[in-house]
Structure formats: C-alpha cells, structure tokens
C-alpha cells in the first residue's frame, strides 16, 4: 500500500510538472540527468495520462497533527492552563515532510514515537494540572465536586477530539476523570491525579492526534462525504492551523458546512480572526523553506554582531509582513512579491541599513506588532517583497557567505514548482578549487564547463546570482567578501520570465507578475491542504483553483475560497 503510494507520488511529480508547466518548453533538468547506463531507479517515473472529469473527491492521507498544529491546538484547547512561553513543539516526534510541507502521513508511528507521544502528553497534562484553575473555573477550589470534573471533561473532550461524542464515549471519559482514592503509599492529590490521568489519555487519543476523516458513504463506493465536523476541521486546520472554534462547530452541528456558501462565509470570518495569522504563517514559513530560521547562526568572524536573539525577531518580521499584505492589505500575490513596507525593531533595522527608513502605515493596515517593531519603507531600488526580506535571505545563505546555488534552487522549487534532481553521484563539487579572491559568479561559471553540471546549474545559478546583492545576513552590499564588485545580473531560463533580470528587484517583480509563479503558488497551497504532492487525479481541481486565482489577479483569499467551496473539499476518495 505504502509502496504503491510512494510510486504514485513519484509518477505524480513528473506528470504534474508537465501539467502545471504545460506552457513551458523543455524539461526540468532532472530528466536530462538520468543516466541510461545506471539502469532503472526508484526515483524515475513515467508520466501518466491525465484523467479528466470533475474532481468530486481527492485522496487525502491520514495525517497526524504536526508540531506546529499541536502547538496551536493546545494553545486554543487549554489556553492559560499552559504556562506562558511553554513551547510544546519539541516534545513531539519530528515531523515528516512530504511535497515540501509537514504532513506526518508517510512514516508510521514506531515504539519510540509511542513513548514520545506518551511523554509529551504527560508533560502537557502535568503543566496544566499545576494551573488547573485555568482549565475550568470550578476546578479552582482545593476539593472540587465530582460533578465539576465531569463537566470539565464533557466540555473538553469533544473540542479536543473535534467531534460530538457518543454517550458511551462520554461516559468512559467521565469515568476516567472521577477522582479515585490514592493507593497506599502515594500521597498525591486525587483531583490532580484524575486531571492528569484524563488529560494525558485524551492527548494520546488517536482522534486527537490524527486528522480522522471517516466520512459517510455515498453512491460511489470510492467516494466518502466528510462529516460536517470533519469539514469544520479541514477549514480550521487550513486557515488557522488549529482546531475548530464554537462558530465552526455550530455550523457543523447544523449541517450548514455542506453548503459551499456557508464555507465561504466561514472562510471570510476566519480570515478576519486573529488566529488567521498563525495559519498563514504555517503555510508561508514552509513555502519559503524557513525551517532553519529557528536555529539560524552566522560566522562570527564575518558577522561579529550576530546574536541568536535575532531568530524570533526575524520570524516576527515575516509574520508582520504576511499579515500586512494578506490580512490588512490587498492580499495579492503581486503585493507579497513587491511590497516595500516591512516591520522591524532596531535590532533588525540595522541589517537593512540604508535600505530601510521610517514610515507610517494607516491604522487599519497595521499588523499586530511586537514591542519595539515599527513600520519601515524599503528602498525601491534594492528591495521588493517577501523574497528580499532579511529573514528569507539570511536563512537561505551559508554561515559566512551568500549561497547563490541554494537561493536559485529555492526560486525554482518554490516559485516555479520544479523538481530539481540531486547532483549526479560521481560529480566532484566544486569541480576545481576556486581561485583565491574569485567571486561566486566566477566560481559558478565552472558549472557551464561540465555538461553533467550544466543541465541543472544553468537553471539554478542565474536566479541565485540575481540575489547576490544580499550577503549572508540579507544585508545589501556592493562588494563581496573578497572585494569583488557585486554583479547581480540574473535570469530564469526555461520559465515564462524571459530575458535578463538586473538584480533582486527585477527578479522579484518578474515573479510577482509571472503566470507560472502564480500557478505554482496555488499548487503549493494545494499541497499544504492535501498533505501530499499533487497527482494526476488532482489536475482538474488544481487547474480550476489556479485559473480562479489568476482571474482574481492573484488574490489569496480567492484562492482559498476556490479550495474550500470545491466539492473535493468535503469529499474524500478512498480507493
């Protein structure tokens, strides 16, 4: 079963590239690199013919909540019962990434993971026991009534498990939550023990840990319609990266969520809710491959003032920018790629240097800003949009120097949706030791000399070279470390962006208006929503969502709306 899925995925990658890049001539470089003499590889797949017809239902794997989703879910579920600043993410096993987004759908739980899940649930439960008055007001007294514990779990369990519970299920949770006399020799408080026991079991429950989508049968045995509460969870995890709130649950109870208009109305409400920022960050951080931001470090010889305390500030800058564009601004992809306003505290402003100057933003357009953050206007000649922000450029760099190959590959993967093959097995990297003092551009020119390298690097390097204006911290520069003047001429050959790109602003603005980049952005949202890479069956929905996104001039809420009103959003293919 898993093998089949893995194979389908490999096939899907190839065929969907053909699909989404249908107007691009030529193949991605990976195909040029396959060496016939090496024989068949598990990574090669033949394109399948596209299947036509309406995408009434799509296959969605069973997903376990990601660390980020668990963090948000527990914040919303337990609120102030969790101590401020208690970061639960690393308590849980590491996430599996599939299709470029964490999905936890590929690697089954192992015994180690069982122990980790157990310990994580216990750690959270024990922390909440300590602040039990915040779990439920009636738990505050030293000796709460049995009825209070029953009430607490009756309210909590359906929220945690994201569905109404059958009477027998509720009864078993109630029974677990009843205080029991402590065994001889144990001097713990029986109510604390009951809360601990119940909460740690609840947080290990498969209904809590997995995105369960049982659905209901339809006329088609391969298609199940999701229950209303499962639809509510699809909406909440897509938009908030967390569990449904009371309004979504009410719309699920009434069955309204089967109505596309009701889902669209909920989407609008949810985007106006402060929780939307978390959800949008969940997508954009992964889209921009910023996983390494949490452990960002720099060579202190090159950046003596780098401080690890910058990491959360960099994340906060990105969050403010995303909120500013998508939730407070015109919400267009082009603006995401071209806005000249960002939000920084003095510690980050220093890295922008002359590129940033104080500005004002109308009250209604201001994102929620942490202490010390102020709006700044970015130099129009040097910065444009999210790709050129310090958090993005600093993450996509080496410790001491810029990384044009890595940055170029990032652009091809995340803006053009290309699958890049790994370097051929026997290639020596770098082919020749760089001459002392040579620029990155001079070094990368060696790729052209070896056909094995040239196929891919001719695609990757020019995009990355256009970002050479930024050093390894994302600061603008005119000379590299060796003193060579920066030459940031670049290009994106083999894409719908033609001709030379004079530096990062030209690159960002070209992407802002590229049809291919906008289609790709929509594809990335679909991957995020499905928890897997796209496959041939997804083609019709993907094209429909892309077309609607383009027709709406890259309006992100319209993209999300196209997703949530689709029949496929409330159904599941279960072949």
């Amino acid at each position, binding site marked *: 079963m*898993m093998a089949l899925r893995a194979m389908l995925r490999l096939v899907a990658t190839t065929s969907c590239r053909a699909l989404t890049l249908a107007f691009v001539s030529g193949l991605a470089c990976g195909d040029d690199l396959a060496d016939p003499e090496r024989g068949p590889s598990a990574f090669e797949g033949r394109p399948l013919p596209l299947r036509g017809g309406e995408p009434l239902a799509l296959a969605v794997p069973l997903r376990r909540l990601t660390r980020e989703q668990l963090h948000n879910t527990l914040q919303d579920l337990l609120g102030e019962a969790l101590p401020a600043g208690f970061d639960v993410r690393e308590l849980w096993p590491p996430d599996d990434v599939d299709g*470029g987004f964490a999905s936890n*759908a590929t690697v089954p739980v192992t015994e*180690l993971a069982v122990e980790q899940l157990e310990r994580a649930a216990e750690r959270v439960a024990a922390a909440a026991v300590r602040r039990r008055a915040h779990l439920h007001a009636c738990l505050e007294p030293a000796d709460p009534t049995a009825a209070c514990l029953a009430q607490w779990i009756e309210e909590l369990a359906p929220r945690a498990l994201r569905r109404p519970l059958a009477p027998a299920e509720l009864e078993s949770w109630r029974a677990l939550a009843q205080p029991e006399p402590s065994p001889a020799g144990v001097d713990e408080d029986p109510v604390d*023990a009951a809360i601990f026991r119940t909460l740690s079991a609840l947080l*290990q429950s498969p209904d809590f840990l997995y995105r369960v989508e*049982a659905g209901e049968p339809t006329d088609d045995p391969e298609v199940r319609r999701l229950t209303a509460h499962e639809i509510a969870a699809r909406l909440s995890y897509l938009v908030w990266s967390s569990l449904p709130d009371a309004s979504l649950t009410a719309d699920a109870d009434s069955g309204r969520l089967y109505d596309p208009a009701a889902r669209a109305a909920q989407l609008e409400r949810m985007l106006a809710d402060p929780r939307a920022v978390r959800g949008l960050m969940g997508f954009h951080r992964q889209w921009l491959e910023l996983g390494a931001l949490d*452990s960002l470090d720099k*060579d202190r010889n090159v950046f003596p003032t780098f401080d690890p305390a910058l990491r959360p500030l960099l994340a906060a800058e990105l969050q403010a920018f995303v909120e500013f564009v998508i939730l407070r601004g015109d919400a267009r992809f082009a603006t995401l790629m071209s806005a000249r306003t960002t939000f920084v505290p003095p510690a980050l402003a220093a890295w922008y240097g002359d590129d940033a100057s104080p500005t004002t933003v109308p009250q209604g357009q201001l994102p929620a800003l942490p202490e010390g953050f102020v709006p700044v206007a970015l130099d129009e000649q040097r910065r444009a949009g999210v790709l050129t922000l310090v958090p993005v450029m600093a993450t996509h760099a080496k410790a001491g120097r810029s990384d044009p190959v890595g940055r170029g590959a990032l652009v091809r993967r995340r803006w053009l949706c290309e699958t890049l093959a790994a370097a051929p097995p026997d290639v020596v*990297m770098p082919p020749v030791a760089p001459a002392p003092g040579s620029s990155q551009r001079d070094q990368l020119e060696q790729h052209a000399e070896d056909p094995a390298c040239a196929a891919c690097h001719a695609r990757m390097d020019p995009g990355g070279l256009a970002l050479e204006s930024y050093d390894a911290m994302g600061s603008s520069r005119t000379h590299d470390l060796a003193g060579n003047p920066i030459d940031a001429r670049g290009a994106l050959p083999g894409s719908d962006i033609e001709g030379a790109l004079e530096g990062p602003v030209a690159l960002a603005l070209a992407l802002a208006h590229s049809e291919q980049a906008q289609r790709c952005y929509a594809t990335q949202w679909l991957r995020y929503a499905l928890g897997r890479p796209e496959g041939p069956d997804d083609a019709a929905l993907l094209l429909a969502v892309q077309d609607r996104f383009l027709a709406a001039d890259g309006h992100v809420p319209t993209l999300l709306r196209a997703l949530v009103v689709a029949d496929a959003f409330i159904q599941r293919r279960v072949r």
Partner: protein
Amino acid sequence: MSRARSRRAFLRALGLGAAAAPWLPSSLIHAETSTPRRVVFVHFAHGVARDRWSPQLGAEGLVLSPILAPLEAFAARLTVIEGLDNAPGLRQVGDQHNIAVGTLLTAMPLRADLGPGGHYLPGGISIDQRLATELSAGSDPPPWPSLQLGVRTQGFAISALEAERPLRADDDPASAYARLFGELGLPPAQLEQLQAQRVRARDLVRTRLDTLARTLPAADREPLEAHAEAVEAHQDRLDAMGPRPASCEPPDSPPLVEHPSTPADAEVPTLVRAQTEVLVAALACDLTRVVTLQWGSSGNDGLRHVWQGIDQEFHTLAHLANGEDPHAHEQLAAMNTWTMEQLAELLAGLDAVPQGEGTLLDHTLVVALSGLSVGHHMGDLPVLLAGGGVPGGRVLSAAGAPLASLWLALAQHLGVPLAGFGDPADDAAPLPGVA
C-alpha cells in the same frame, strides 16, 4: 502531608520539578556471569580526508593515521576495513546524501525520496534490526531489543523495521535517559501508580486505534495498525521487564539542552557525550544489546564545528576537501579527528566496565562508518571494527565488496548466520577474514 507538598512530589515524579537524581555517580558493574553478544553501529557524517585516514601496517602492528590517532589505546583491538562499497547506493540515482544514510544498514536501495526538505523511505530491514531479535533471545532477555540514539539526526533514520518503516533515533539524551532509567527515582508506590495510569491510557489508545482501523477507509488502516502494533510492543516490553538488577546503577542524568532536536552547533559535543554515556550504561545494565548511534543527519544540515574554531559548514568543507583546497582538507581532517576522539570515548567507556574475564568492550562489537568516503562518493567507505572479540591490529582489504558482505560476516561472528542480506542484485557472501 499537605496538599501542596503532595502536589510537588507528584509533579517532581513527572520530571517537572527540580528533580535531583538520588543516585551517586558510580562505576557501572554488571554482575551477570553469562556474556551476551552485543553490537553497536556508529554512523558519522560526510566522509573523511582520505589521505589522513588510512593506517599503515608496520612490523609492530597498526601505525595509526593522524585521524585515527585518538584510537591509539585500542589499536590492538581495532580493524580498519578498506575498499567496502555501498553497492545499492552506488547504483541509485537521487539525493546522494539521503541514499548514503538511508541505505547504509539496509543494503537496499531507498524505496522513495520525499522531496525537498523531506525524508526517505528505506528499502528493507536494517542489519541492526535483523540481529536484534536473535541477540535478545535467551533466558534473560534485555527489555529493549534495540536502541536508536542520535545527535541532530533530524529524522533521517539509518535503522528500519522493514521496507518503508524507518526507525528514527532519539536525538534527546534526556529523553533516552528518562525512558531507560528515569523513573527509578520514583518511590515504588508512586511508580506503580504512574505505570498503572499509563496502562489505562494505552488500553484506551489501543482500543480506539483498533476501532478506527476497522471503521475508517482502507487507506487509513496501515498507519493505524502500525501505531497499534507499536503501542502493543511497548506494553509487552514493559510487561516482560523484571526488576532491575541491583548491580545496575544508572549514570548521572544528562545535562538538559534547550532544543535537543535543533541544538545550537556549540551544544553538539555535549549531546554526543551524553548519548555516549547513556549508551554505555544501557549496555552495562543489559537493557539492550543492539544500539545504533548516529552522529549527524543526511545532507547539508548547516552544522559547523564551532567548538573546534571552524566557522564553515561541515558539509561544505567535506565537499571542498580531498581536492585542491588544502585549507578545507585540513579542517575536514580536524573534524574527523574530533569524531574519532568521540569514538575513543565510547570505546573507553565500554572498556571501563568489567565483564567476565575482560571488559564490556570485549563483549561488544563496535562498527563505526560513514556513508560517504570522499565528496558524494559511496565507494571505498571508511569502516572500523573494534572490540567484540574480533582480532585487531590489522587492516582488512575488501576492495569492491558490498557492505552487505560485512553485515553477513558480522552476523556470523555474532552467532546469527544469515542466508543472505540486502539487495539480491549483490548476491553478497560473508566477507572473509573479519573474525
């Protein structure tokens, strides 16, 4: 006892209070008279500075190379194997780092690669798992058939239960310690209470997993069944655990690292040392007989050996070394030497535990290897054997032999002869001359 005080005791028991381990540091003495066979697989990342690696064979035995010099004390029990190839890895096209790590112990090509930033699915059972069942059999089986310990492995597993079921390493020594020794500090009645609660939670989890596996669409069954199986295996192991022998004294609890799965570079040495201590203690107490110890993940994880004053990425330097960049080559050699110092610490730890006529090291076969030799190359891998009763002081030439032949030879030496292992395309036979 006041309620506040009882709550403190309760919370401390869960590892949330300022729990001071009540044990004093002590030598680890295992009283067992029989001598179980044990094996440890150590993986280190990014290959070696080749010309500083290979030892010479002199009249007096091994003349260790600069990189291997830290192992001097163990030279008489050290075998350096030269020329082994990761044959399936060499044949497979794809992300070379993922292939190098994910095929090392399985000797099978990867089943799938999960794309940028993603992991991979292994192509078969890994040799440590193949051996774990037999080495754990007998009248007094260890509670853990195997352990997977790691430092900054980021989910890139070297072990696999079977195809597509990777066994990831525990990157957090505090977590590994808690699993192995942690609750020894609880008063017996409280421990019993906690364990009883856990059994109830597991029963609920298992019952619900079974129900879901029966009622959810077929596509969901496999992960649910695997999860239920893992819960059951966990419970079975706990049920089978007898009282800990009095001779088994846990080591000091490891230092707490703030982000054990994404540690700062400078914290890596602390984590390496802590995992080594956990490993030695686990073997000394016969809590397990098969361990994988994985230092580093797959590809360019950005790790820099800043504690050695090296500011460039390990991965980058490994690419620049072995070529025309003498500075990078020096730095790779220095990092390799540091790695061998850590290996020497492990061997010394094992050698400090008396066992039978000799030491724990004499009864534990340690295999240390990297999945890469030079750059991205998976041929002529750097491989070491130490301890476990394998004759030492020698260089064994295995030019062109597949790694599977070493795994078969080790299995034979450990008393678990296998009819075959790894990719059938390699038709591997046990490597001669290992033991």
